[in-house]
């Protein structure tokens, strides 16, 4: 980490009328990376995006792009492409005029600009002969125009604000793949804001998870999935996300569950082995795909099946255990016998989080 990063965000903060939207954010992005800013609405990710675009000025902190401080540079001098959630295509201009707008602003000659428009439209898979107005296009096509408009200026940074949220489910899957492919082809450093973890996992090289104006974790998708830093992330990433079972260490060997039932798990999952003092409250993350169901046996957790959903390739079993609802993913065809059933977590190091702070407890080994 001796080299200066392409984009660096240093302790950037912003508050609106006394409410803090961003606490000191630090984030580095390498050139050519695809980074997702992931979090629920109101987490500050859009504020951060607007600061990068220059549409908002941070209260403090610094944004550097390619070595230069751009914190107070007005947006029209940044050469940063921005794609809005609602696309923000100029309704009074044709599609080509929309894409050409930024080139005109550079004072580019007509021939060159037209060639660049063709190139940008082709890049997003649109017919360059398109002479229609934006409102005559479908949502998916409008989005392609918005992307073409942003990449036509060959931006130093491409910002995507919830680019898929206005599309229907089928289109969303298709476009997210296209976004990734477009990024592979152009190599433009891209930052995408999204509230959809599946979208972030599928497209980004690295994901910055935000909550309540803070950056919780900045990690590659697999790392984020395997080693969530907080209970919030564990309960947010994955489909369905990890089950968070509230537990209190009863003694060195067993946990007490909500409602008072005791659970004596496999030794690897015991409070003693994980360094949890008796009486401490934790949350144990149990991934739905790692849980097994079966008849009563040592180490199991007693439960009762509430519902079974069939999703095609698998069953999603909803089990009531210790006054908590846990979901279990099983391959289609697995025999399920209920309603009373036992749950078996994997016998490796569990993901345990402090019940109060939400922070991950260190693994013992």
């Amino acid at each position, binding site marked *: 980490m001796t080299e200066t990063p392409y984009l660096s965000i240093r302790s950037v903060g912003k508050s609106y009328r006394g409410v803090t939207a961003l606490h000191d954010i630090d984030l580095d992005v390498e050139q050519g990376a695809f980074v997702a800013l992931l979090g629920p609405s109101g987490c500050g990710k859009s504020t951060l995006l607007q600061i990068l*675009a*220059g*549409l908002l000025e941070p209260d403090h902190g610094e944004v550097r792009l390619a070595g230069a401080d751009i914190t107070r540079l*007005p*947006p*029209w*001098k*940044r*050469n*940063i*492409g*921005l794609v*809005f959630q*609602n696309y*923000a295509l*100029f*309704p*009074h201009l044709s599609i080509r005029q929309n894409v050409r*707008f*930024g080139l005109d*602003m*550079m004072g580019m000659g007509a021939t060159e600009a037209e060639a660049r428009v063709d190139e940008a439209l082709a890049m997003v898979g649109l017919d360059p002969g398109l002479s229609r107005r934006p409102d005559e296009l479908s949502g998916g096509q409008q989005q392609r125009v918005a992307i073409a*408009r*942003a990449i036509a*200026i060959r931006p130093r940074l491409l*910002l995507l604000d919830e680019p898929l949220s206005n599309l229907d489910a089928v289109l969303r899957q298709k476009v997210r793949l296209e976004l990734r492919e477009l990024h592979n082809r152009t190599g433009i450093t891209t930052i995408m804001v999204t509230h959809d973890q599946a979208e972030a996992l599928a497209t980004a090289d690295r994901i910055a998870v935000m909550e309540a104006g803070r950056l919780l974790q900045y990690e590659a998708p697999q790392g984020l999935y395997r080693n969530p830093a907080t209970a919030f992330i564990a309960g947010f990433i994955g489909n369905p996300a990890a089950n968070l079972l509230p537990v209190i260490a009863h003694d060195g060997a067993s946990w007490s569950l909500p409602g008072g039932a005791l659970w004596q798990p496999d030794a690897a999952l015991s409070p003693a082995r994980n360094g949890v003092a008796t009486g401490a409250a934790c949350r144990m993350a149990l991934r739905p795909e790692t849980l097994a169901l079966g008849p009563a046996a040592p180490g199991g957790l007693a439960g009762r099946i509430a519902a079974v959903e069939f999703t095609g390739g698998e069953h999603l079993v909803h089990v009531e255990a210790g006054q908590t609802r846990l979901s279990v993913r099983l391959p289609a065809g697995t025999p399920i016998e209920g309603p009373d059933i036992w749950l078996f977590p994997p016998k490796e190091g569990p993901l345990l989080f402090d019940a109060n702070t939400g922070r991950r407890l260190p693994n013992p080994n």
Partner: protein
Amino acid sequence: MRTRLSDALSLVVVLTILLFILAPILVLIFSAFDGGNIFRFPPRFYSLRWFEAALNHPEYRSSLWISTLLGVISTLIAVTLASLAAFGLVRGRPRYGLALEVLLLAPLTLPLVVWAIALLSIYAELGMNGTLPGLILAHVTITLPFAARIMIATFKEIDPRLEAAAKSLGAPPSAVLRRITLPLALPGLLSSTAIAFLVSFNDVVVTTLIAGAGWITFPVRTFSRLRTEGIDPTTIAIGAMIVVFTIVLIVVGQRLFQLSRRL
């Protein structure tokens, strides 16, 4: 059967009400072609003589000129002030924005005659009664709320993200204004210009109180004649022309930019 009958019945009722609204205007246009000295129905003969008389009548000509001049000046000032204020209110979202909006739109809800009585006595104190600046000031005041209401709605409809998008594409504020905001606000600007001009041109309530003898607009002249001499055919002819002009403006405005939606 029953629904078809009730459909037809409701159509008849609706058309009757519409006819009632439009009847006076239609009668005004129709009766301008009556050739007699006093309008009577059915007319004995039709002629264009009152139009000719109207256009040659020096008093009416000067009144029409005054109305036009007053309308144009007041409209330009009102639309300019209203557009600036509306842009500030919508984009700047100042702290007391709602109160300011209520202030700008107040003349739409408060009775103008009451205000005009007050203005008359203030103008008298200041020696502004019957002066052109006094009249312009009054007309700007009564037309500005119409323009402000239309422009506030217009700017609210323009997505600020369009302006942000233009900025991110390298457009400095002046280019954003020229190439994005103004073209998108144009229908609103034209609507408010048309409405403001019509309101100023056709106003009688305020103008008749403060116009004095020097700047008699057409509606004021007509109103004072009506009270002293009754209706005369020349007035009808000019009135008909103005009404036709108004209808054309409204219909064109409606077709081109859905003017009534903005009222």
